[in-house]
């Protein structure tokens, strides 16, 4: 088999397109392109029940994503769930009396945190805690209550 210049070019093209496909998938398809860098600050919130919230769930204000949940753990003393959020530092003017609630996107969708800005002149800082929280609505609990009410009403 004769080894030619065209072959070299075609092999080069093949390898380049394969690597380009990998880069395409890394940046366009996966979450690598939308990773928040270290350019963010941490805020905590205590919830009675954080429901189906997961690490990496979005944190929204008025429907715009401003950060992600970075950790969820249980407070050993109060048995509440502590949700740690990383907020992008360009949004550093959130009032300190803002409230957070856990909502579900659609009926069966993913759960996310919605932050309702307050009116205070002070802003949330790194490692500050949000006091006004409302827990996740657990669908089974609601259905259970509804059924109980229905049964009692009879």
């Amino acid at each position, binding site marked *: 088999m004769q080894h030619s210049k065209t072959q070299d070019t075609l*092999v080069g093209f093949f390898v380049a397109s394969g690597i380009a*496909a990998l880069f395409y*998938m890394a940046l366009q398809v996966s979450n690598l392109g939308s990773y928040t860098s270290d350019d963010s600050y941490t805020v905590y919130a205590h919830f009675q029940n954080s429901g189906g919230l997961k690490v990496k769930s979005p944190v929204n204000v008025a429907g715009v994503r401003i950060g992600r949940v970075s950790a969820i753990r249980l407070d050993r003393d109060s048995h509440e769930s502590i949700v740690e959020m990383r907020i992008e530092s360009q949004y550093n003017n959130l009032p300190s009396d803002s409230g957070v609630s856990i909502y579900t996107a659609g009926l069966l969708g993913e759960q996310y945190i919605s932050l309702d800005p307050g009116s205070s002149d002070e802003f949330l800082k790194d490692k500050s805690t949000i006091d006004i929280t409302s827990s996740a609505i657990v669908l089974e609990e609601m259905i259970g209550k509804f059924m109980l009410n229905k049964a009692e009403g009879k």
Partner: protein
Amino acid sequence: MLQFLQNLGKTTRSSFAKLGRASFFLSHTLTGISDVLPRPNLLIKQVYSVGVLSFLIITISGLFVGMVLGLQGFNILSDFGAEESLGVMVAASLVRELGPVVSALLFAGRAGSALTAEIGLMKATEQLSGMEMMAVDPIKRIISPRFLAGFLSMPLLAALFSAIGIMGGHLVGVGMLGVDDGAFWAQMQASIDFQEDIINGVIKSVVFGFVVSWIALFEGYDAIPTSEGVSRATTRTVVNSAFSVLALDFILTALMFGDI
């Protein structure tokens, strides 16, 4: 009955002997790779015949698989009003499973069978023994470059397959069926994890490339040096590769995605 036992023992022994020969062959091939690296021309020639010539079948199949996923996914997801999840469905199924597996099966059919036939014919026409007579190790000179080429081309082909498949899904979903463009990409980016999905898919294709190249080259090298023997070896390559790829895929998926 005695005959049956005799045959059973014979088959078992010969299959173990074959596995042993295959293992020796593999270790010999792997040690031969160090001799390939100083001579990249050998490798480039093989990457051409193994990778570049498979390029067309991989890209066209990827496009059609992606388009079919887009159509089928849309039909099912629109029943639940979740058409926006089409991007996730297409991307996840391609990156995790279909990309590595289907491209490995196509690779076995396109490149693996060609490798087996080439090596088998070299053996039948006594080119390999001729090399040995000239004190050239045929495994180092012939097998190792082909093995390395298959091993390197497979992940690239699988990545191409997945990427073009996703574009095909986008073409059908967004272009023809009217799924929202932003939601298609945004949901995909939110659900596909770089390490969990893409890196694991690449690992799968590396493993498949290794196994398919090994099987193809060994079957050619171990073929009975007649025209019938070569044709049987080629068939065995495709059958054994398909079987190994699918079985290994289950094991790898269980290790990567199943919390066992």
